[in-house]
């Protein structure tokens, strides 16, 4: 059994004639923050859904948390957390009810649930808000809640699909601090974003253009390789290269 | 009204329709399929039914009658018996649906102008079929009696079905045509219009168009015209199919008939626009069309169950179903040959419904900007 968190080999997905993801190969170490960069429609969400066992790959294979994503989807799902773009939380329930619900879904015992709730609430500053309806909270709070729910069962890997789209600059930074705390505690973080400046918060990043990974390395090495001052410039260079 | 914008809108609407294979299927294949299903499958006409004949007379006259029965095309005699002893067994073994019992002295009675009683025994497990078979058989027997110009009394145990005056051949498919028309026009006009209008909301184009100088009237008229044309073509198609394939006679004026169809199309379109004004997603529009249009059109319009047979509390509800008035007018005109003048009541009701629904939806669409 490999110690890698994610190991993908030539993973591809086609929808009819459309190739959404082509030959995706990557390895992610435990505790790493892996940035998955690309514009909207580059294939990020499709690739993530495959790695989470939500979508069967057309070709290639991948192991996530030591399980095959095509054949062992149940084990994969038990060992990962997933936060989608449109946070899947129930607006008409309170924070507490949401946490209880998701704990039950992941099969946590009630004592465990209580403990995790306390822990997460203090970690993310949710204590005063536990009894509020989610619909009454600002976007930033919902985001924190969605993240807490994704890691409620202490998964080995957490997948975050564009978690910071459209939030204000302070919340965005607070969220990245949450991510780095989580990674420090040993959870692997696989995060997609189309904000290129966020690449700098990651240990390693890949940049995807039209379904294919164009470059994969640490942000610094990538910048050096393209002799570009920012990741944004790197991306522009990459995107211009395409026919 | 800005005519160029309207023309552009109608052109765009046709592009939508012809690019979407599903809507093409609904618009053009479904009506034909519906007419065929009702016409062929539900048709109650039965040919070559297997029968047994028990001839206790066995003389010239009874031979003549048997020949007439066999040559009618309705029946196929699979067993000739001369006693009733193993009739039960034959019924079961040979899957017989009707037995005709010719009494002893039948020929003699015919010759002597005396009355005799024929017995018809039918398989009652399919009551509808049994009724039809008995009707067919008694018709043949009565014809035979008239031909031999002898007063042969109809067999007493069953009542000879009177010939239906407005539908002499009892072809049920005729009775279904107005209902099928109502159903198809509801689907094409009401449901399809409501879906395309709601789709504009889902695409966001409704909002974008609202920010242009285009009056909302143009949007609505631009939707009405294409679907009106399609529905009109559909009603012609169904009527043509009914007359050519099923030989349905049209007693009233064809133009009057089409006029009523076009009026009903307008009412359905208004219903569709109304539904789109109270829903925001395609699913909701489809659900509303199902509950609000098809169930009443199928069950409360007199299409399948006559309105007069409904419980008293249900009848007022049936009266607000547009299809009820349409079917009523169509039956009067198609089968009875009534003129437009004699269905004025139905015409007024349908017109009133259309105007009311359009007025409400216009108000609603204008009031959305708050």
């Amino acid at each position, binding site marked *: 059994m490999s110690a890698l968190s994610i190991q993908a080999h030539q993973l591809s997905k086609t929808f009819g004639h459309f190739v959404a993801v082509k030959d995706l190969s990557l390895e992610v170490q435990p505790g790493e923050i892996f940035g998955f960069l*690309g*514009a*909207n*429609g*580059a294939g990020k969400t499709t690739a993530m859904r495959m790695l989470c066992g939500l979508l069967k790959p057309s070709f290639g294979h991948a192991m996530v948390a030591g399980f095959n994503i095509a054949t062992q989807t149940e084990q994969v799902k038990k060992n990962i957390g997933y936060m989608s773009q449109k946070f899947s939380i129930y607006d008409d329930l309170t924070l507490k009810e949401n946490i209880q619900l998701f704990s039950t879904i992941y099969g946590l015992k009630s004592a465990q649930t209580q403990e995790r709730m306390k822990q997460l609430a203090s970690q993310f500053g949710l204590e005063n808000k536990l009894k509020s309806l989610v619909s009454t909270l*600002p*976007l930033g709070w919902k985001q924190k809640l969605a993240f807490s729910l994704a890691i409620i069962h202490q998964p080995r890997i957490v997948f975050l699909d564009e978690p910071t*789209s*459209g*939030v*204000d*600059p*302070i*919340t965005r*930074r607070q969220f*990245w*601090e949450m991510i*780095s705390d989580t990674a420090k505690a040993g959870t692997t973080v696989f995060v997609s974003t*189309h*904000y*290129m*400046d966020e690449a*700098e*918060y990651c240990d390693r990043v890949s940049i995807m*253009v039209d379904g294919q990974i164009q470059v994969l390395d640490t*942000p610094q090495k990538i910048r050096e390789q393209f002799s570009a001052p*920012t990741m*944004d410039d790197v*991306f*522009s260079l990459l*995107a*211009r290269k395409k026919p | 009204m*800005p005519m*160029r*914008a309207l*023309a*552009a*809108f109608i*052109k*765009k609407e046709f*592009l*939508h329709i012809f*690019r*979407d294979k599903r809507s093409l299927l609904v618009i053009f294949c479904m009506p034909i399929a519906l007419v065929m299903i009702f016409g062929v499958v539900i048709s109650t006409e039965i040919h070559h039914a297997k029968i047994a004949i028990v001839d206790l007379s066995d003389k010239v006259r009874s031979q003549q009658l048997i020949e007439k029965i066999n040559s009618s095309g309705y029946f196929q005699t699979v067993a000739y018996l001369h006693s009733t002893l193993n009739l039960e067994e034959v019924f079961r073994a040979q899957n017989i649906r009707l037995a005709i019992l010719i009494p002893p002295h039948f020929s003699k009675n015919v010759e002597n102008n005396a009355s005799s009683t024929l017995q018809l025994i039918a398989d009652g497990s399919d009551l509808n079929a049994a009724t039809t078979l008995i009707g067919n058989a008694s018709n043949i027997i009565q014809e035979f009696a008239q031909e031999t110009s002898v007063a042969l009394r109809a067999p007493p145990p069953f009542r000879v079905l009177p010939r239906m005056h407005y539908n002499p051949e009892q072809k049920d498919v005729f009775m279904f045509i107005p209902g099928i028309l109502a159903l198809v026009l509801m689907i094409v006009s009401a449901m399809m219009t409501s879906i395309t209008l709601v789709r504009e909301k889902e*695409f*966001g*184009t409704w*909002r*974008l*168009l*609202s*920010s*242009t*100088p*285009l009056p909302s009237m143009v949007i609505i008229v631009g939707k009405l015209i294409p679907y009106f044309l399609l529905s009109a073509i559909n009603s012609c198609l169904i009527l043509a199919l009914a007359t050519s394939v099923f030989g349905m006679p049209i007693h009233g004026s064809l133009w009057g008939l089409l006029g009523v169809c076009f009026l009903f199309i307008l009412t359905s379109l208004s219903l569709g626009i109304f539904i789109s004004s109270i829903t925001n997603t395609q699913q909701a529009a489809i659900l509303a069309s199902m509950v609000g249009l098809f169930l009443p059109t199928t069950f409360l319009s007199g299409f399948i169950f006559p309105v007069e047979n409904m419980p008293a509390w249900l009848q007022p509800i049936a009266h607000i179903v547009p299809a009820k008035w349409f079917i009523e007018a169509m039956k009067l005109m198609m089968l009875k040959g009534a003129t437009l003048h004699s269905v004025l009541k139905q015409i007024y009701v349908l017109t009133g419904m259309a105007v009311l629904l359009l007025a409400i939806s216009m108000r609603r669409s204008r009031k959305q*900007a*708050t």
Partner: protein
Amino acid sequence: MVYIENLSKNFGALQALSNIHLHIKPKQLFGLIGPDGAGKSTLFEILATLRLPSSGKATIHGFDLQSKAKQIRKTIGFMPGQFSLYPDLSILENIQFFAHVYGVHFDESSPLTRDIWQHIAPFKHRPAGKLSGGMKQKLALCCALAHRPTLLLLDEPTTGVDPVSRKEFWEMLQSLKLHNITTLVSTPYMDEAQLCECIALIQNGKILAVNSPSGIQAQFKFHLFGVQSAHANTLLKPLRQFEKTQHCFAFGKTLHLTVKDASVSENDIVEYLKTQGHEHVEVWRMQAGIEDCFIELMHSENHERS
């Protein structure tokens, strides 16, 4: 061109916009910068005559928004935040349709849309639903310009679009000035603020500041330092505990430290970090960017409330 005075909008108890004052001059490229839920889209919908304000007044070309909506609609081109064209119609069919809605013909050689048209013309028979994000936005811009409006309202045209298409899009917007077009554009990307002549920062339905980008940067009240080291993220906590610190956030690999006290020097910070056990730290004074200003304004706004 556009005057907005004391405009408010509430949906039930939710205050979407409160007391907005804005003045947009002719031919200006005006940016509305703020996160999701700040009220940007609501303001656009009001200006596009799709919603009525709860209170306050606004005029476009001198026409009152509430009583002269018809006249306003002829002069504006609106591009909603959500892609709002017909996905089953081709590029050309969409543009022609929207031109006809305004009663004009789309002219491929019109100087106003010529540049944009060149970008999308190679795909003119492709259905709009099958275009990439960047192409879709260019098409939507072309549709919004087809009737030669004088005011362009663009609600988040570059959100989620790849950086190259974003740059091209902004170049197009800048060239529109030559055609006497006033543009109001919103964006959640702070880096795009620099491309506007005038910007308004908006948060929680309130305008935090209105000025030119350089004017906003000049208004920054505090003193900003950049801090870098090999392990920058370990410095975040100690820097926040530094008594002079207003706030401190990571900007990529650099930490931006805001202090109130003008007397604090680079050396003070290095020395402080040394006492916390952090060596080899690089500290320098820096000019505040738009994002620093936004964070600062959000902070003072929060302080006022609490």
